[in-house]
Every structure is written in structure tokens, then in C-alpha cells.
């Protein structure tokens, strides 16, 4: 799904160009990370280790001069290891807050399903509320705040899969996938000397990012597009293979993502194409399929694809308006 024929927003284009110095290929993943960042959402990356998840986030952080933090989730990780802890300072005779890794701009939460639900929820709460509570103290999170959590789909032994209700805290769920033969060759060539990330310069300031996020909020969504979004999400609730359809939060997420996507392509209005594109990443993880459908080997991706094809795209304004 390349939209190269449409113009990118010039600032975003610069960021993407910067990222592409390090990341080979993965245009979708790069664009969608930007979508999530601009829409103030978070991303769940589901993939095997070693395909460049960490590198993507680090590059993103470095391009924007953000503070990058990483949490490696392990079964024995405690919530305080995520949020930070208050330590008694004998000099000042006061408890002093030592901020945890969640208080960064861009946080990579690696293998989030390997830790206990208690620790998971400390992160998820932060993602939802934009602040955390430590020792009865409310600490606001940094701005911008962007979490990219990863999940290893292979090793389920001793993991705590995220409950469905938690999953829809993530705006998008992505897969990186393996690079192509050429891309992998290119990767080897690039990293044979010094790693390109070491020489990466920031191209966007935090203020510019905040401004961009503000612009995204202002992207115009016409009633026809709103109708289209609702038609799509409500169709998931009526699909016979779906046990639990997309919630209204899903509709809002879809609209936010579509706005960000439109902004990336330098438009101040959304078109159905935006909705269709982001729906493939916004909606699937919000569905629970029936056990029959699972048994038949259907995936949520298939169902969303099917619904996109079958839902009528609005091509004209209603006469009544």
C-alpha cells in the first residue's frame, strides 16, 4: 500500500527520510509509527525478535530529539520498576521521587506479555491517564508520551497475554515482518562500519512535534467520513464470525488515526482512503472472533479486509445536508 503519488507533509517527510537512513524498508511501519505518535496513541508491535523493533523506536526518538527509555519486561519486574519509586534522602530528610522509565518521551516496552498483569497495568494505566500515581503522589507524564510495546508471538510459555480490554488501549497493532532479500543485504552493508544510528541528527524539535499533534487534531473530518467510520465499526458488530465487535472507543481511534494519516499526506481533511488504510491496523486487535471462526483459521485481519471491501464508500454528500 504505497501512496507515493500523494505528497507528504514536508516536515514529516524529513523525519521519514531520517528514519530511512537507519531502517531499511518497512515504510508501512514507519508511517504508522508516525500516525500513532501524531495521534497521541500507542503502538503494539507483535513480532519475533531481531526484526528491528527496537531500532525503529530508537531512530524515531533520536530523529525528534526525544528522551528514549526502554523497559525490558521480565516476570519479576515490579510496578515500581516501571513508574519509579520514592527514596528517603537522609540529607534532606525527605522522600525523593526517583522517576522510572515510563517518564520518558518515547518508551519501548519490550516483551510486555512476559511480566505479571500488575506490572503490565502500571504501564497501561499511564498510557491511558497520561499520569501515574506513586506513593499517593500524582506524577504527570512527559509530553509527548509515546509507548511502543512489543509482544513475542512465539513464546507463550510462562507469559501473561494482554487481556482484550487492555489491547484496545493501543491505537495500532503492527507487524514488522522479515525484510526482503534486498533489504536484508542493504542492512548488512549499512551496519558493517559504524552503525548509522550513531551519526543520526534530530530533524524535528519537540515543539514542532507538539504543533504537528495540534494540527492533526484540527484535521477536518466530514460527516460523510464519520458515517463511513461508524458503518465500518458497526459492521464488525454484526459480522457472524465476530464474538465481540469494535467498541465506540475503536471508532474514535479509527478517526484519530485517519486524521493523523491525512496530516502525514499533507491534507487538512480526511478521505475514505485514510480510513481504509488505518482501519487495517486500528481495528483487528479490537475484535474477538467466535471460536468457530478461530477454528476455521479465520483471522481478524481477514474480517476487516472483507468488511472494507463490502462497506459502501460514501462518494457524495447527503441531499439533506
Amino acid at each position: 500500500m504505497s501512496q507515493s503519488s500523494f505528497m507528504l507533509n514536508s516536515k514529516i517527510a524529513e523525519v521519514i527520510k531520517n528514519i530511512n537512513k537507519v531502517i531499511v524498508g518497512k515504510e508501512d511501519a514507519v508511517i504508522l509509527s508516525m500516525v500513532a505518535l501524531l495521534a497521541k496513541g500507542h503502538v503494539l508491535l507483535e513480532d519475533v525478535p531481531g526484526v528491528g523493533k527496537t531500532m525503529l523506536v530508537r531512530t524515531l526518538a533520536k530523529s525528534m530529539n526525544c528522551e528514549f527509555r526502554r523497559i525490558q519486561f521480565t516476570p519479576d519486574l515490579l510496578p515500581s520498576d516501571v513508574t519509579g519509586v520514592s527514596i528517603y534522602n537522609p540529607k534532606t530528610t525527605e522522600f525523593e521521587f526517583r522517576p522510572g522509565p515510563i517518564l520518558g518521551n518515547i518508551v519501548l516496552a519490550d516483551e510486555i506479555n512476559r511480566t505479571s498483569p500488575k506490572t503490565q497495568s502500571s504501564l497501561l494505566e499511564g498510557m491511558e491517564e497520561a499520569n501515574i500515581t506513586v506513593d499517593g503522589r500524582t506524577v504527570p507524564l512527559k509530553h509527548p508520551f509515546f509507548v511502543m510495546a512489543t509482544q513475542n508471538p512465539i513464546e507463550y510459555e510462562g507469559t501473561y497475554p494482554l487481556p482484550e480490554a487492555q489491547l484496545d488501549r493501543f491505537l495500532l497493532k503492527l507487524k514488522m515482518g522479515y525484510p526482503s532479500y534486498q533489504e536484508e543485504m542493504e542492512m548488512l552493508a549499512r551496519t558493517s562500519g559504524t552503525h548509522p544510528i550513531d551519526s543520526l541528527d534530530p530533524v524535528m524539535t519537540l515543539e514542532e512535534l507538539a504543533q504537528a499533534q495540534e494540527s492533526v487534531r484540527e484535521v477536518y473530518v466530514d460527516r460523510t467520513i464519520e458515517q463511513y467510520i461508524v458503518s465500518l465499526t458497526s459492521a464488525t458488530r454484526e459480522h457472524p464470525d465476530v464474538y465481540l465487535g469494535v467498541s465506540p472507543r475503536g471508532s474514535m481511534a479509527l478517526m484519530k488515526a485517519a486524521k493523523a494519516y491525512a496530516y502525514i499526506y499533507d491534507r487538512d481533511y480526511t478521505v475514505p482512503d485514510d480510513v481504509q488504510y488505518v482501519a487495517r491496523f486500528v481495528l483487528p486487535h479490537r475484535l474477538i472472533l467466535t471460536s468457530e471462526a478461530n477454528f476455521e483459521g479465520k483471522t481478524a485481519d481477514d474480517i476487516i479486509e472483507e468488511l472494507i471491501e463490502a462497506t459502501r464508500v460514501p462518494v457524495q454528500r447527503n441531499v439533506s445536508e
Partner: protein
Amino acid sequence: MKKLLLSLIYIGGFFLLLEWLWPLGILTNTQNAGVFYLYAAFCFFLAFMQVRWYIAVPLKLLGLIFVLDGLFIPERIFSSGWWSILYEQLMFNAEAVWAQEWWDFTAFFRSLLFLVLLWLVSYLLHYWLVIARKALFFIILTFIYITVIDTFTPYEAQGAIIRTFILAAFVLGLLQLEKEVSDDRKEIKWKTAILALVPLVCAVLLAVAAGAALPKFSPQWPDPVPYLENVTGGAGTGGGEGGVQKVGYGENDSRLGGAFVQDDTLVFQAIVEDRQYWRAESKDQYTGKGWEDTLEEPVTGRDPGDIGYSLFEEGVETDPSQGFIDFTEEADFGKLLYPYGMTAIGNLENPLEIELHTQTGEMETRSGGDAVQPASYSFDYGAPAFDLRQLREASGEDPVSVREKYLQLPSSVTERTKELASDVVSEYGNRYDKAKAVESYFSSNGFEYSTTDVEVPEGDEDYVDQFVFETKKGYCDNYSTSMVVMLRAEGIPARWVKGFTGGEIKETDAELFGENLNAYDITSANAHSWVEVYFPDVGWVPFEPTQGFTNNADFTSGTDTDSGEPERSEESPEVEAPDQQQEGNPQQIGEEEGAEGSAENGRGEGFLRNLLWWIVPAVILVLPAVMYVTRLRWLSWYHGRRLAKNETPDSFQAAYRHLLVVLDKKVQKRGEGETLRTYAKAIDHRFETVDMQHLTTQYERLVYRKEQRLQRAGLSELWENLIKKALS
């Protein structure tokens, strides 16, 4: 496989074209129609084989020349004489073209034009079916053509319409199959082809079977032709087999009934003292639907100067006179027409052999075994004056030969017909009065003279029963046949006679053999049928049961003068055109007929009114159909004009949406979930442009951004480009 499919479609198209050509062979005097079919097939074959034009054109030309040579040029082909004939023909017709005297075209030139037309049609059909892959328009045209031909000519299209239906269903089905195959761009396999064809064949067969099995409404609207006929009025003996007939003298009377077309073509001119009925033949066997005759071996070798044949016995008083008859080309029945009492024929321009059928009184003229119509001849005749007393008192036995033949009745004749016959004649004791009673029965009792609204008996319905009891509307055939049947039911030998009435007087002092006689014009509309009743010792006496006509024969009262009858009969026989007669008998005429018969203007109005009945629904039906079929084009024109005139968001949006419809119909379907952008890309990819994407971006801004004005000008140009590409 694909090739085979196309060839099947194309062959289907050829047979559809043949449906256009058949009626030509039947209706027109086109000789050797087969040659034209062959030439059409030849052109089709060449077009189908996709022979290169520089081979195909000379081949077709050569074929054309061979056809013309075979038909018209006796000289050896390509000899100098041949060339000079060709040159003369072409020059003559070129002059006719130049002078716009189209009627001067020779048969040679008309055939040439027709062949060229076939050539063009084969090309056109090849384009329609094989290149454009569209047949519906042609098929609709074919149906219209066949129905029109069926309605307005004697051509019987019942078979044609069924054949066309089957052909059309197959051609359309195959085209659809072919289209689907070519859309998928994959080679079709035999198995799938057969799987697709079996349902097609079944569906067509089922449709035909269902069509044949289902009960059919009789026509809900009156036949349009009788209205045409109404304008001029007229009567006649129709030929043909039911349905609409063309008025005139016909050979086949096996199925009578139905309305007919008026035809005022002059058939012959007669110079005689006064109006005569012109007898041609009689028929003896009533079938329940019409008349057949049992022809016996004709008597040949009669001397035209002394026919030696009379319909009545020598005792009947006659009034000797002479006459002359002059046929036009319209007359081609190969028979002599003669007045009652003809004794001799003269001045036959070429020696013709006369074959006399004594049973029917039919005198066929032959030359070397072929029926030939004499151009003109003179004759001696003695118009009979039947003695009423003799007729009333005629009491001898009918000869066996007469009883055998002329009392025949088929089983279809109903009991009520017989009962009615016996009721009508019950008061009378003698044969003449009985015949007279039956004859005059039809002049009242609710019978109505009509040539328009005349039914044809269906199924096992009897022609006479239908007329006498059901419809009570008809023309000479109905009246005369009914009278014969009723008389026969009463045991009176009678027969059905065909010929012409006396026609219209043209000249009052035409000179013939030194005498001043009258000249009469007799047209096809004067074709007529009447009745002859057999009286022992007298012979066959004509009767005239048809409303509006009076008996041609004289009856003398003799000594019996108390009956009022002779007075009328004594008058010189007046035969008038039915519409004139109807003026005199207004009480017998229906409202409609009265209005038409009263005056030319009234008639015209009635005709117009009736025509409106046909034109208005036709327009109402056809116009929307035409508008609908051509909607993409005229809507495109409309939107194009509107956009070009004023590029506003409104006009642009309407035009863009129309473009979407056209593209969807003609170029590529847009899926439900396909966005305008992806669709525009696909279209641009197909047309190798970027116009659609430009238009789409503009349209998106209007719809999804709610913009109130256009971002750029020149949209109508892009739009025109696309719509042209889409419609081509």
C-alpha cells in the same frame, strides 16, 4: 474455443439477418431471392474469416459482378458486349440518380444497390457482434421489423418471431458468456463452456416450450391495419391464411376471416353496356374455416369463339351484348373473368389455350402448360333475366352430380346454424323464396358490414357460426358463406362464387364495335364473393346476401306481379362501393362506420383519432425506451454542456458523478468498498492519463472537505477527454 464462440454468435447474427431477407423473397417480386441470400452469406463468411481488406474487397466485388452477370447480362462475362451493357446500365441509372428520378432505376441497378447494402450490413453486423459484442439493438430492431411486416403485409411472421426469439436468446447468451470470458482474460476450457452452454440451451428451450404451452390472450388492441383500410372503405375477397390480408383476388380461401388492407390498384377495365359481376370461379367444399374446391380434369380444346358452356339452361331469357376487358399488370390469376351468360371470346392477342372446369366455371388460360393472364379480350354475352315464376315453380329433381357436391357440410356446422336456417325458411314453400329469405335475413337482424373488426375463427370454431351468432360483423365472404351453408342445411344445393363486382364507371360513351358503351374501372377492392343456388331446369342463379350490395342478375316477374320483389329486381343492377351503399343504409351501420362513411372529413378525423390510438402509446412506449437506452450519451452531452458553460461546484459534482456512472457501465466496475482514489488510479492506468485523478482530487475536496468553490479551472476539458474515452 473463444473463436468457436464468436463464430457461433456470428452465425446466429447471419440467421437473424436472414429473418430480414425472407419476407423480401415472399412479399416482393424479387426474383431469385436465393442469390441474394447466398451473397449475404458470402459477405458474412469473408468478414468472419477476417480476410484482409485488399483481398476481401475484390472478392466481394467479383461476387457482386457474378451475381449481376448471372441475373441480368446475357453476354459472356467480360466480353466487349458485356462491358457495353454494363456501361449502358450504369450510365442510364447515373442519369436517373442525377435527375432524382428514382423510379427509373432498372432492376439491374436496384439489385446492385441491394447487393451493396448486403455488403455493408454484413460489415456492420460483424462490427456489432464480433468487435463491439453487442447484439441487443439489432435484435430489438429485428423484432420491430418482423412485427411491422407481420402487421402490415400478408407475411406470416409466427414462425419468424419464434425463430428470432430462439436465435436472439442464443446470441445474447453466447455474447454474455464471451464477455465474461474476455473480461477475465483467460482461455475458456471446453468443460466450462459446456457447463455454461447447457443451462443456456435449457433456458431457451424451456422459455420456448413455456411460451408455446401458455394460454395466449387474444389481441387486446384492435388491429391497426383495419383503420388504414377504413379510410377508403371497400370489400373484397381476401386470399392468404387468416390474420390481416391484402384485399384483392386470391386463390386460397381455405381460411377466411380477418380484416384486410384496402387496395385501390386497378386490376382491369371493362367496356360493357352496364355493370356486370365478373365471375371467376366457384368453390364447393366448405371446411368450417373457408372454401376448397374439388377440381376435375378440365375440358380443353374449346374454341374461344364458342365456349359452349353456360351456368344456366337454354330456357332462360338473355339479352345479347358485347364487351371488352383490358387487364393491367396487377391481374395475374391466369383466368378469364366473364359476365353471366358469356358465350364467346375474341380478340385474344396471342393464342391461349382455355382449360374449362365445368364444375366451378373456372376458365384457366394457358400457354404451353403455364398459366398466362391474357392482356385483353372481347366477348359476347347474353345477360340472363330469370323468370321468377319459373324459379318459384321449379320442382324437378336435382341431378345426382349437383346433390353430391353442393349439399356438402362439414361437421363443424353447428346445430344452431341449422335450426336458424330452418326457422328462416319455414314460412316459404319454394326454393326461390327460401333462398330469398336467407338472402334478406342478413340485411337486418343486427348484421353489420365491416372490413375492420372481423374475427378469424380459432380452434374448432365454425366460420359461419362465429359470424351469424357471435360477431355479426363481416364482409362478403362472411355473408356469402353463411348463406350457402344455411341453404345447404335446408337441402338446397348452393355454391360459393368468387369474382369482381362491376367497379366504378369511368366513361359513359366508350366506343366498342361501333356501339357506345360504358367503361368501368375495376380495382382490387372490387374483389367479391357471392352465392349461386341451383334450380332444376334453370341452372345456377346468382344471389347477393352481402349488405350494401344488390344482385347483379335480372329477375323478370312474368305474370306474377303481386309480389313487391320484381320492382326492385327489374331495375338495372346497381353495384356500388360499400361505403356509398352504407350512406343509404345508415340504420345498419355502427357509429364508427357511420362517422367514417358520412364524409371525407369525418372519415379523416376518425382515421386520425384511430391512428392516435396507435401513435400515442407507441411514442409513450418507445420514447422512454430510446431515452433509456441512449441515456449515457445524452446525459453526457447534457453534463458536458453544463460544465463547459459554467464550472461551478454543482455542475462539476453532477458531471463527475455522471462520469462515475459511465465509467462503471462502460469501462470498469467500481466495487462497493472501492474508494474514488483507487478507482481513479485504475481508470487512469487503463486510459494512460492522470485526468481522472485530477478530477477526483477536486471532487474529494468538495465532498470530504466541504469546500464551496473549485480549486482549478479547465475541469470540463479533462472531463470531456475522459467521457469521450469512456464512451468510445
